[in-house]
């Protein structure tokens, strides 16, 4: 019988901790090195969209469910947190819980209905549902502020710790904490038996059924978990931006996060975070120079799909493999 070490297969490989710790250290030190508010804000936004992109990666990369309506959960959570904060209380626990819960509660029926279809039909159904959420955000002016959006969302208050989240750095660290926590939890999920079930459904759904899996339930679990984390990103976004509008639920937002996942590298969890970073930083640079950001983003995306389909993570992986092979020679 193989020993415990020999059992270790590709997905169980223990990740080298070094680079991870170095990155975390860099992220923590960053505000001291570069106290510029602008860069801290950019990085905060990258971390928020990083969580959003990781959540979609769970669906696209790990379970093989190409959802084109993920912005629905992001937006619903953002709006819920904003509405609670502007009308009832700006307590962080309350707004956070309300937002994430709203996203999860929406994911259940939407997922249950969409999952019965596959491929392009699934894509269309998820798009349809998220456009319905958009329509609601647009029309229900009494709740959401309509096309003018919901403004004046305050930074939340966490009484116990006495933190002033209105400060850029403090908010950055709070977001970083949420990001790291999300990353750790999602890593755990992906390595767990459920995570392996996701991959099994992606690889061969009919065989999964033939070995006894209720694949509908597996897919629904992926959908809801992804929705919850997208909701977390949405809540953080509403704190960060102070303002939510229907365009945050529009198909372009779903498209944007999908682009982040593909460019970063689907199925790697970290790749999409890098994708979020690349896209947002590029957007900031390009938009300040020219109006042609959609053109450049589209062209970049096409380039990646053509030559670097496995994204930035794929490029890293291939370069490392090449380096190892030539080192051996």
């Amino acid at each position, binding site marked *: 019988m193989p020993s415990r070490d020999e059992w270790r297969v590709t997905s169980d490989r223990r990740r080298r901790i070094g680079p991870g710790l170095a990155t975390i250290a860099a992220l923590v030190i960053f505000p001291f090195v570069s106290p510029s508010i602008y860069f801290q804000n950019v990085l905060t936004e990258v971390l928020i969209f990083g969580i959003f992109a990781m959540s979609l990666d769970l669906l696209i990369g790990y379970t093989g469910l*190409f959802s084109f309506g993920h912005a629905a959960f992001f937006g619903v959570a953002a709006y819920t947190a904003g509405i609670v904060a502007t009308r009832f209380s700006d307590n962080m626990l309350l707004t956070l819980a309300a937002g994430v819960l709203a996203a999860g509660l929406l994911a259940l029926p939407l997922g249950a209905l969409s999952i019965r279809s596959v*491929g392009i039909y699934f894509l*269309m159904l998820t798009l349809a549902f998220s*456009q*319905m959420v958009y329509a609601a955000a647009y029309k229900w002016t009494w709740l959401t502020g309509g096309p003018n959006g919901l403004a004046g969302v305050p930074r939340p208050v966490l009484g116990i710790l006495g933190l002033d989240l209105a400060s850029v750095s403090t908010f950055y660290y709070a977001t970083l904490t949420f990001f790291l926590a999300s990353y750790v939890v999602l890593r755990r999920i992906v390595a767990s038996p459920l995570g392996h079930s996701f991959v099994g459904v992606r690889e061969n759904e009919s065989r999964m059924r033939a070995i006894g899996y209720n694949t509908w339930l597996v897919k629904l679990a992926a959908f809801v978990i992804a929705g919850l984390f997208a909701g977390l990103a949405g809540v953080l976004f509403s704190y960060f931006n102070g303002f939510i509008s229907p365009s945050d639920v529009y*198909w372009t937002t779903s498209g944007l996060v999908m682009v982040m996942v*593909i460019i970063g590298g689907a199925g790697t969890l970290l790749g999409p975070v890098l994708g979020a970073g690349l896209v947002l930083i590029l957007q900031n640079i390009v938009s300040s120079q020219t109006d042609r950001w959609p*053109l450049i983003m*589209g062209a970049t995306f*096409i380039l990646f799909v053509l030559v670097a389909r496995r994204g930035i993570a794929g490029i890293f992986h291939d370069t490392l493999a090449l380096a190892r092979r030539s080192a051996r020679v």
Partner: protein
Amino acid sequence: MPHCLAEPYCPARKPGNYRKSRRLPAHCPLPTAHCPFSALLESPLVDPQTLSPYLVQVLNGLAFSMLLFLLAAGLSVIFGMMDFINLAHGSFYMLGAYLGFTAIQRLGSFWVAVVAVPILVAGLGFGLEMVLLRPLYKRGHLDQVLLTFGLAFVFADVVKWNWGADIRSVPQPPELTGALSLGVTVYPRYRGFVIVAGLLLAGVLWAIQARTRLGAIVRAGVADKEMVSGLGINVQLVFAAVFAFGAGLAALSGVIAAPFLSLAPGMDFEQLILSLIVVVVGGLGTLKGAFWGAIVVGLADTFGKIWAPDFSLLVIFAIMAVVLLLRPNGLFGRALA
């Protein structure tokens, strides 16, 4: 004095009580508003005076359906043959409309535009297929979907760059301005042209696919690509031609739409969404599905905008969701591989 519309048919009427003056018959105990028969008879099916607004809207819906059909036909056949959804299809439509705008401005002739622009866009489609899409065949259709998604973004921005973000309008060709008389009502001649042209094109397309060798090749390719290639037919060329033809049809739809819909950024996405719904509702891969799906969605959109203007898109999405839940492959579609 108010008269009861139901009077000639009223069961309460006794023979001999009917009065030619059409005033309330003496026997009627109910005022007009409360007579159940009166409500029935005010329906457009019976009373010509109320027929005309409905007729006009139905015709409007059909005109829109024809535009959708031209788009959906291309989408559906491309899916049937090559197994992927072209998310840049709305871009071809938009390009057709904007190029048509420029062509009409420069050349002054709508008819030249109607012929030249689709050919131009078809050529663009041909080139695109060979350069960008062909390398992705081996990788499965998902990658092609992603690529066309990127293309849609690029095209949308190119159009905005070149023509600006202002809303444009295109004048109708002088031969088709004015109104037709339809007996009970009048109807804009141009829209009548759209309906007739659409039906003619539908007929031509059906004839091509059902009666010609080319149509047989395309249908065979939809059913079994490998077999067709084994028969010595250059499948790659057929794919490129089908893609180009689909792009041309979409552009034609754009040129025809230009004189009665306005041109604005975002028209590509709106039309793409609707034609995707058409294709999904009708069923992927069939011309018949594209036609009937277009009728359903076109009418739903037109009447939706009248009855529930804020929710028309919602209604259409709801119809699509219901159809998919009951028939997961659309009305006439085949199952995904």
